[in-house]
């Protein structure tokens, strides 16, 4: 994957997950409101996760379950260390842990669904070209 492609993936994943997180955050805590600072802090967490996932990609881990496990641990650690620890986005307790876990899962499902939709369009185009190639043989 070249640099431009990686940057494109970085922004796609960051913006998609950021949108989902903002929507869930506003739905769960409408009384808190979203301050200017809070929006940037949430974006920073999403960007950090995307960056770590892209760095993990360099290691070319073949085992899918292992890779998903590493993604999960990285995401969880980033949210709790950066989001909970440094940026103080939420207090550390079991309830918050479960809520954040739910938010992460929702964001992950949406990002994967968006990526799958994109790949589906690509595979449809490839299948179309395969059909044309067979006709021309």
């Amino acid at each position, binding site marked *: 994957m070249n640099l431009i492609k990686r940057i494109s993936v970085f922004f796609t994943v960051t913006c998609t997950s950021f949108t989902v997180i903002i929507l869930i955050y506003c739905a769960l805590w409408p009384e808190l409101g979203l301050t200017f600072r809070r929006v940037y802090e949430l974006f920073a967490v999403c960007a950090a996760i995307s960056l770590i996932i892209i760095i993990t990609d360099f290691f070319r881990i073949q085992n899918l379950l292992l890779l998903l496990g590493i993604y999960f641990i990285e995401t969880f650690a980033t949210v709790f260390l950066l989001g909970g620890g440094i940026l103080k986005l939420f207090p550390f307790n079991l309830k918050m842990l479960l809520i954040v876990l739910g938010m992460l899962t929702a964001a992950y499902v949406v990002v994967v669904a968006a990526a*799958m939709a994109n790949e589906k369009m690509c*595979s449809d185009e490839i299948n179309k070209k395969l059909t044309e190639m067979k006709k021309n*043989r």
Partner: protein
Amino acid sequence: MKLIIEQSNGLEEPEIKVRYDEMDDRLQRILGYIRLNVHSLSGVKDGKTKVISLDDVYYFDSTDERTFIYLASEVYECDMKLYELEQQLADTNFVRISKSCIVNIIKLDSVRPLINSRYEAKLENGEKLIINRHYLPGFKRKFGI
């Protein structure tokens, strides 16, 4: 596109000469097909060696330092390494799809996306192969995507 076929005396072997102004997808496909038919390799099965046309090859697979040639329903062992094949077949319809596999895209029936940016490729003989995410960009490039 014009097709000119000439009979010429005194040639040691048939010659194919392609003249073009600009290379396009169609011409590239034709050249890939010609390259496939120009090259052949030998495979061994049950102690017998057979010359195999690349056009008949579905895919190459490497297991335990050994390389195998997969045809529609037969498997032969090849004395070349997968990276050597990859280099030799760079301008043909073959493309690397995983650490251990090179597939002939002409033999693909269809592809479908899987989770985590991988594809499943279904071959004309019904076999299914996984296109690894790291080889996906190269695979897509073969189709001009």
